């Protein structure tokens, strides 16, 4: 009952928003920007995603709204920490606090419309696959989890096997070298933050529209920071970041499912956090992109 296909599906449902958000963080940090405001951007995506889904009646439109809100929040972050530039840590924390206030306010204004659950994403196992256990399992995987996996494959290819990826990574490693090569560092970082914001917003929408179909104040509950930790755990590489997110999903699913064994539920609820601490403690230390957290003042 604890370890069965449903356990893996539960872990995937839990990990999916983290996977998408962590990819956004990875891209921002590869471009040399400390994306500490990810929690706030995710929260904005979560709210605007559900609003879009409820008002249009289409969950996919909701996902697009979440993504758009994330892009806007990413561009605001870029204006503040790339173009002004302000301290990346302070501004990231300020973004998170502001997002809690803004989303709570908008939630109150629209509360009557959000009483109902948002529409479900229409994704069922086709009749021809119903008799095959493997096919049934693959079709039971949430579509957003598939999307996340595809995004990771694309990100890996673009970052490490294409010219734009090299350009982005070079900005994160050494702005002096990038400048010497004639790269426009602020614009590269702005584009990176727009993509990072979009992915974080999409991750927020994956939480509210793709998973629980409702919103509450501060619904992200630190998931943005967990995604951030997954990027550090993954040493800024897509495949290890993906693995970190899946590991947290597995830990959380395990914590919820081991309750069937009886005993104190709080003991089991510690599992994902203990697991995270253990993995971080024993994981090989990686080297962050050199320019992360440093304001670019070379204009």
């Amino acid at each position: 009952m604890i370890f069965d296909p449903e356990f893996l599906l539960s872990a995937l449902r839990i990990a999916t928003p983290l996977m998408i958000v962590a990819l956004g963080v990875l891209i921002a940090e590869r471009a040399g920007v400390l994306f500490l405001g990810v929690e706030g951007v995710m929260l904005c995506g979560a709210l605007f995603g559900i609003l879009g889904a409820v008002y249009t009646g289409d969950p996919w439109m909701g996902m697009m709204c979440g993504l758009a809100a994330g892009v806007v929040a990413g561009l605001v972050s870029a204006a503040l920490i790339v173009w002004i530039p302000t301290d990346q840590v302070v501004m990231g924390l300020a973004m998170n606090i502001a997002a809690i206030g803004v989303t709570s306010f908008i939630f109150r204004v629209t509360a009557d419309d959000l009483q109902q659950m948002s529409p479900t994403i229409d994704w069922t196992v086709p009749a021809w696959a119903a008799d095959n256990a493997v096919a049934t399992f693959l079709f039971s995987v949430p579509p957003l989890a598939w999307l996340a996996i595809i995004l990771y494959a694309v990100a890996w290819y673009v970052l490490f096997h294409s010219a734009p990826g090299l350009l982005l990574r070079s900005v994160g490693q050494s702005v002096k070298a990038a400048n010497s090569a004639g790269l426009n560092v602020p614009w590269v970082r702005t584009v990176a933050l727009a993509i990072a914001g979009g992915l974080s917003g999409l991750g927020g929408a994956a939480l509210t529209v793709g998973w629980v179909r409702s919103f509450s104040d501060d619904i992200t509950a630190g998931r943005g920071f967990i995604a951030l930790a997954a990027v550090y755990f993954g040493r800024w590489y897509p495949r290890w970041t993906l693995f970190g997110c899946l590991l947290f999903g597995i830990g959380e699913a395990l914590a919820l499912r081991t309750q069937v064994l009886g005993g104190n539920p709080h003991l089991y609820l510690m599992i994902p956090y203990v697991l995270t601490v253990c993995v971080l403690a024993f994981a090989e230390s990686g080297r962050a992109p050199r320019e992360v957290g440093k304001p670019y003042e070379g204009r």
Partner: protein
Amino acid sequence: MGTFLKNMGKRLWRIAAGLVLAGALAATPAAAQDKIKAAVIFGVSNPASVNGWDRGHYQGVRKLIDGYGWDVTVAENVPFPLIAGTAENYAKAGYQVVVFTSSGQYKAWDQVAPNYPDTIFAMLSTTSTLPESKNVVAYEPDFFAYGVINGLIAAQSTQSNKIAGVAGLPVKAVEDMFSGIIEGAKAANPDVEFLHAISGDWTNIPRAREVTALQIQRGADVVLGNAGVGTRGILDASQSRKARFIGYATDWAEDAPDIVLTSVILGIDGWYDALAKDVVAGKVEPKIHTFGAETFKVMPLNDKLLSAEQIAKIEDSVHRYQAGETTVPVVPHKFK
């Protein structure tokens, strides 16, 4: 001369207008003073949007404002460590009544009430003891009886003989309610098995969703939820897996009409009604007022999910329990 008289006339008008305004302003505080000033402290934010316990309390707040004309201030999203300070501030500001909406706020109630004898501190939640002070009162439901009614309905609606209860934390109210469900279900159908799960807090919708999904996977086809904000997750899991849901505290029919069997209304606004009447009559005394089975209301059962015969049977069993014609032994169970 003409100009002088004209100016004097204007001045007189201004003085007269000023006097009228001053009179109005002076009268306003007197009118406001007639109103009873009350503060209600919530642990969650936006309680009106949180169906279940908190919306029930919000309906009570509306009753104080609309029904009794009280001047009510609502404090939302107050974390447990700040509740005592919040209550104290209201007492210092001259509020006549301070309402606590959760048994988790007991410590603050106990700490603050004795220091402010001119303010009434009311607990509108489960409590077995009162602070040592004359200005306290409690209005609480009999959660065991509430659970029995839920158990009677669930046991006669299940097809798999498995019913599930999901809660935020295993607090006393939850333990009483779950104990009632077990005993009520047993009274109606001895073959019923009760599965339970704890999501770990009152706000985590995703967690509540996942633990509910597990109970449904284990075979439960009727789900009861008491997880605060997280109850939305319980409803979502039930809806996505076509399990039936019994609404907690307030009416849930509109949230998911396709799966909500019924809702068992706690009648929290009735507790506010009782508080208002006691305050107005000056009859507040240190006492725990318990609202029993007869005060709970079962909303119309869903005739698309249950046959007419089932509905009649359930209604009869609930009615007989509420009327005291059948008794269910009070057996406490532990869920830790």
